[in-house]
C-alpha cells in the first residue's frame, strides 16, 4: 500500500482476441469526401434518384456544420479527407444463397463465433452480417418472411421496399440532427433493415453483426427498425474490429420506430478494438441511436454493454410521443487503459403518463475516463410523466475517472423525476476477502463487476448475457495485479 502501485493499480496489456485481419479482395473508393464519393457509393448500390438526392442534401448540410466538442473526451482532429468511405469485400456476383458467400468471409465469422450456416444454428437467432461497409448475408430470411417480417440489409430494402425506407429514414434522426448523423446520411453504405408487421411477435432474436476489416476505412452503417402496431421484436447488435495502429471512425445511425402497443428491445454488445495499452489505435465510436414511441403504450428499451472502442460517444435515446409510452435505458460501460467513454441517454417525455427508467453502470480502470451524460426532458403536455434514473460508477485504482452529468428539464409540474448516483471503488478489502476464500484476484474482480452490473445484465437475452459477462471480465483482465 505504501509504495509504488497497489495491486489494483497495476495495469497490464489486455489482449484483444478479435484483432485478426481477413485477407480478402476489396472493392473500395479512394480516400476523400466530395460529391463524387457520394455519387460513387450511390451508383455502386444502384440506388434510386431520391436516395442520392437525400444523401447529397445531407452532405451539403454537413459541410456547413462544425464538429462538436462538448463531450468529456479528447482526441486529435479527424481528417475526413483521409478516410475511405466505401469498402466492400469483392464478391463475384450477387449471392443468391448463403452457401455462395466467399469461404474467407465465412471463416471470419466462424472465428468470431458466429455461424452463418442456418442448419448449424441452434439458438434461433437470425443474423445480418455486415463487413466493412456492406451486408454479406442475412440468415433465416424465408422463415421470417412467412410472418411478413422483413429483415435484410438496408441496401436491399432501398431496392425492394423503397416506400418503407422513404417513409421512415431520417424520421427519427433527421439529416440535420448532428454532425456525425449528417455525415452518416451522406455516406452510409449499408446496415440492417427490419419491419415487423401489425400484431406480429417476432419469434426469434434478430441480430446484426458489424465487423470493420479494411484499413483506413470508416464504417457508417444505418439501421432502421420499424415495429408496427402491437408487434414485438428483440434485436441484438455486436461489433468487433482488427487491431490497427490508426484510429478508425465508426459513425452509425440507428432509428427505431415503435407504433401503438409495439415493443422494441434493442441490445448492443459493443466490443470494437479499444486501442493498445498506451492508447494507440482503436475505434472512435460516434454513434447516434434514437427511437420514437410513436403511438400510445409503445415501449422501447435500449440495453448496451460497451467494452470496446478507444472513444465511445453516444446516447441511445427515446422520444416518448405516444401517451403511456415507456422508454428504458440500461447501460454498462467499461473503460480500461486509455479508453474514454461519454455515454448516456435522452428521454424526451412528450406524451401524457409517459414513463422512463435509466440504469447506468460505469466501470473505469487504468487511466481511463468514463462519463455518464443524460437528459430527462418533460414537455409541457407530458402530464404525470415519471422518470427514475440511477447512475453508479465503480473505480478500479485511483488513476481513472468517473463523471456524471445529469440534465433535467421539466416543463410540466405534475412530473416526477428522480435521480440517484453513487460512486464506489473496488476495495483492497473486497479483493482480500475473496482471496482469503481461495478466489484469485482476476476472478474476484470479475465477480465484483458482474455483481455491480447485474441489473443491466439481467436485461440481456440469455445467450448474450453469458457472452457479455465473459466480455466484462476480459476487458478488465490484467487491470488488477
Amino acid at each position, binding site marked *: *500500500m505504501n509504495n509504488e502501485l497497489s495491486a489494483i493499480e497495476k495495469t497490464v496489456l489486455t489482449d484483444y482476441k478479435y484483432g485478426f485481419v481477413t485477407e480478402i479482395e476489396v472493392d473500395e473508393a479512394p480516400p476523400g469526401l466530395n460529391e463524387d464519393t457520394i455519387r460513387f457509393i450511390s451508383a455502386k448500390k444502384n440506388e434510386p434518384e431520391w436516395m442520392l438526392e437525400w444523401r447529397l442534401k445531407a452532405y451539403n448540410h454537413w459541410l456547413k456544420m462544425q464538429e462538436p466538442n462538448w463531450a468529456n473526451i479528447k482526441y486529435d482532429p479527424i481528417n475526413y479527407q483521409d478516410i475511405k468511405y466505401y469498402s466492400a469485400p469483392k464478391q463475384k456476383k450477387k449471392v443468391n444463397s448463403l452457401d455462395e458467400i466467399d469461404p474467407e468471409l465465412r471463416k471470419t465469422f466462424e472465428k468470431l463465433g458466429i455461424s452463418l450456416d442456418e442448419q448449424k444454428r441452434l439458438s434461433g437467432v437470425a443474423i445480418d452480417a455486415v463487413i466493412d461497409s456492406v451486408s454479406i448475408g442475412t440468415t433465416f430470411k424465408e422463415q421470417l418472411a412467412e410472418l411478413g417480417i422483413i429483415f435484410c440489409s438496408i441496401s436491399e430494402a432501398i431496392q425492394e421496399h423503397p416506400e418503407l425506407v422513404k417513409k421512415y429514414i431520417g424520421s427519427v434522426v433527421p439529416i440535420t440532427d448532428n454532425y456525425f448523423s449528417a455525415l452518416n446520411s451522406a455516406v452510409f453504405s449499408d446496415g440492417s433493415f427490419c419491419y415487423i408487421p401489425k400484431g406480429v411477435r417476432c419469434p426469434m432474436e434478430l441480430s446484426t453483426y458489424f465487423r470493420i476489416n479494411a484499413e483506413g476505412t470508416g464504417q457508417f452503417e444505418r439501421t432502421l427498425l420499424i415495429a408496427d402496431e402491437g408487434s414485438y421484436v428483440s434485436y441484438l447488435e455486436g461489433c468487433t474490429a482488427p487491431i490497427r495502429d490508426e484510429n478508425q471512425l465508426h459513425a452509425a445511425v440507428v432509428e427505431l420506430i415503435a407504433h401503438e402497443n409495439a415493443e422494441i428491445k434493442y441490445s448492443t454488445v459493443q466490443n470494437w478494438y479499444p486501442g493498445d495499452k498506451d492508447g494507440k489505435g482503436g475505434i472512435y465510436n460516434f454513434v447516434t441511436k434514437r427511437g420514437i414511441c410513436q403511438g400510445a403504450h409503445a415501449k422501447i428499451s435500449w440495453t448496451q454493454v460497451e467494452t470496446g472502442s478507444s472513444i465511445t460517444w453516444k446516447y441511445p435515446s427515446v422520444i416518448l410521443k405516444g401517451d403511456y409510452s415507456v422508454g428504458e435505458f440500461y447501460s454498462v460501460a467499461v473503460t480500461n487503459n486509455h479508453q474514454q467513454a461519454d455515454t448516456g441517454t435522452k428521454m424526451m417525455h412528450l406524451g401524457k403518463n409517459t414513463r422512463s427508467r435509466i440504469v447506468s453502470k460505469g466501470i473505469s480502470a487504468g487511466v481511463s475516463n468514463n462519463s455518464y451524460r443524460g437528459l430527462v426532458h418533460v414537455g409541457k403536455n407530458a402530464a404525470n410523466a415519471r422518470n427514475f434514473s440511477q447512475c453508479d460508477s465503480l473505480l478500479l485504482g485511483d488513476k481513472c475517472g468517473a463523471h456524471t452529468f445529469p440534465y433535467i428539464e421539466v416543463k410540466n409540474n405534475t412530473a416526477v423525476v428522480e435521480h440517484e448516483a453513487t460512486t464506489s471503488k473496488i476495495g483492497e478489502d473486497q479483493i482480500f476477502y*475473496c*482471496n*482469503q*476464500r*481461495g*478466489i484469485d484476484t482476476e476472478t474476484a474482480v470479475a465477480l465484483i463487476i458482474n455483481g455491480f452490473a*447485474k441489473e443491466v445484465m439481467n436485461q440481456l437475452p440469455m445467450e448474450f448475457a453469458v457472452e457479455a459477462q465473459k466480455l466484462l471480465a476480459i476487458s478488465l483482465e490484467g487491470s488488477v495485479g
Partner: protein
Amino acid sequence: MLSIHNLHASIDEKRILKGINLEIKPGEVHAIMGPNGSGKSTLASVLAGREDYTVTDGSVTFNGKDLLELSPEERAGEGLFLAFQYPVEIPGLSTTNFIKTAVNEVRKYRGEEALDAVAFLKLMKEKMAMTNIDQTLLSRSLNEGFSGGEKKRNEVFQMAMLQPKLAILDETDSGLDIDAIRIVANGVNKLRSKDNAVLLVTHYQRLLDYIVPDVIHVLYNGQIVKSGPKELALELEERGYDFIKEQFKAEA
C-alpha cells in the same frame, strides 16, 4: 499443524508484532486474548496474508509448508480460513454464487474436480442445517444489508462449507449480543474435530464460555506474554488486563 517462530511484522514502518512464538496441533483450540492494540488482529491478518503488513522477521510453517511464501488464495487452498471481524459487502453478488466459486476454486487448487450444481446443493443443505442458517440470507447479495449477527453467521457458514484445517476467528464475538454469540459458537463447536484446529482471537472472555479452548495466550505489545489453561481467561476477566501490563513492565 501451525508453527510460528519469532514472527515480526509491521505496517507503515510501525512495528506491531515483535517476536510471536506459537505452536498449534490438530484438534486443538487456542485462544488469543489481549487488550486493544496488542496486535491480535494483526496476527490474524498476517497469517491470512494481508498485503498491508510486512513480515520483517521470523517464520510460519503450516502443514509443512512455508506459509509466508504463499499468496492469500493459496493459503486458503491449503486449508487456512479467516472469519473476518468486519466481513465485506459485495453488492449484486449472491452469497450462494460467491461460496460456490470459493468452494470450487479451493477444490481446483487441491486438484479436485469442481462440484456440479447437484453436489453443491447437497453440501449446502447439509451445512445450512448444521450452522442453522436461513436460505433467504444466502440468496441475498453477499453481506449487503446483513445485520452484525447475520454477517458473523455467514462467516461460520462459509467456514463449514470450506472445511478448513485451521480456522482463525478474528473477534467473531464483537458487536454480537449473547444469543448471537451462542448461535455462532454452536456452529464452531459442531465443526471441531480431531483433524482441524481453531485459533480464536478475542477481547472478551465471554465467547470462551461457549467455545472452550485448550490453551489461552495473552498478547501484549506484540508478544505472547502469558499462556495457560482455560482458567486463565477467568483470571483476566476478574483482574482485567492491567495486571498483565504491570507484570510486563516490571519484567521489562
